[in-house]
């Protein structure tokens, strides 16, 4: 049975597509899923860096698309996790060097070999974006609870057609939600009208682990490790309850009474 391909997209840059792709991919692998991560950000690749695999790149997705090598030759197997593979982007070519049909083709080949294909989408809505979504069955939209990010996410939703789309709300700062200084997960879900696949709290750990090229999921003692495993489980269809960022509970109401609406 063919696997499913997901594009991890956002519209707005810097909201965490690449770290999400890397960590959800690792989480799926730890659950025994055969996963391949595809970096579609040609010319500005970063998935390799976040995974710590940048030194092992020989071939890339453009080489595969142009027939210079077989997909298998370009795939980098992660030595730390069984079942996790990376198809890197090219750093020196630009996004026009590959077309939507070629991407569809490559992803099609990959879904025959893997249970899950996660495609890391570049920021924006230009060629790179269109290529990245071309091969995708479904979409995962990453957004932060900030005005610009939500606006761009809404724009993207309009471009994804009838694909199933789910949300990951990233960088949530619980304290700020409680004091009314940040939109909550419910707000975001309501505004965008989509189901929430996951909520990731803002955590310094991400910066640290990205710098090292060691995805958070590889270390079960890391706080965010559990978060991404939960997301992976939900993606696979398990009913894992979302964390409660309760700003409407009794505590929240009491707090608001004490400090006013500000």
């Amino acid at each position, binding site marked *: 049975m063919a696997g499913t391909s997901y594009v991890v997209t956002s519209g707005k840059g810097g909201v965490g597509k690449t770290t999400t792709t890397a960590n959800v991919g690792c989480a799926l692998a730890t659950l025994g899923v055969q996963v391949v991560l595809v970096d579609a950000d040609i010319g500005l690749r970063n998935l390799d860096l976040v995974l710590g695999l940048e030194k092992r790149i020989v071939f890339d997705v453009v080489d595969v698309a142009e027939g210079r090598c077989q997909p298998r030759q370009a795939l980098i197997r992660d030595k730390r996790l069984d079942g996790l593979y990376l198809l890197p982007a090219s750093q020196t070519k630009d996004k026009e060097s590959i077309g939507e049909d070629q991407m569809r083709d490559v992803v099609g080949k990959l879904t025959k070999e893997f249970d899950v294909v996660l495609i890391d989408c570049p920021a924006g809505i230009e060629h790179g974006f269109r290529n990245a979504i071309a091969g995708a069955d479904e979409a995962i939209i990453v957004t932060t609870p*900030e005005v610009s990010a939500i*606006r761009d996410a809404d*724009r993207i939703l*309009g471009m994804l*057609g*009838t694909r199933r789309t789910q949300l990951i709300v990233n960088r949530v700062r619980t304290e700020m*939600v409680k004091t009314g200084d940040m939109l909550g997960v419910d*707000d975001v879900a309501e505004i965008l*009208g989509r189901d929430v696949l996951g909520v990731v709290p803002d955590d310094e750990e991400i910066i640290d682990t990205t710098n090292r090229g060691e995805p958070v999921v590889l270390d079960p003692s890391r706080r965010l490790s559990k978060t991404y495993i939960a997301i992976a489980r939900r993606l696979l269809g398990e009913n894992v309850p979302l964390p409660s960022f309760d700003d409407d509970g009794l505590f929240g109401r009491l707090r608001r009474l004490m400090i006013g*609406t500000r």
Partner: protein
Amino acid sequence: MIDFLSRFFRREEASKTMAKERLRLILMSDRVSLAPDIFDAMKGEMLEVLRRYLEIDERGMDVHFENAERQFALLATIPVREVRTHDAIALARQPAPQPAAAHENGLAHPDPVESEATSEPIRPPRRRRRRRPRSSSPAAPQPESPSDQNEGPPPPPG
């Protein structure tokens, strides 16, 4: 000046409430500008309804969305040449004769101006029920069906 004052007072509001309100308006504006075909179809359907009652000067017509402070509105200036006679209106409002057995319930009639543009919706319907928007156009015709809860276009009257 009033603008500045209102912004001063708004500072007391939780910034997230401001964010939510601003987003609401921004997204309305964005969604309208990003689907011009769909809204052209909407305008077309509006005119079909109006033509049953009025003779309109279509060249002098202006229908557009306007994004003003805290309000997003559909503004229509439609010069009226004639109001149709009672008979003409009654005729125009009668449902087209059906070859099959006539239905008593007006809701069973398919909407005569079903637009082809809806084959691929912009997005699937929201799970949650939308709160009634604050700024509904006062000129909107009241649906004649007894139930006020339907979210679709008002059924053809009669």
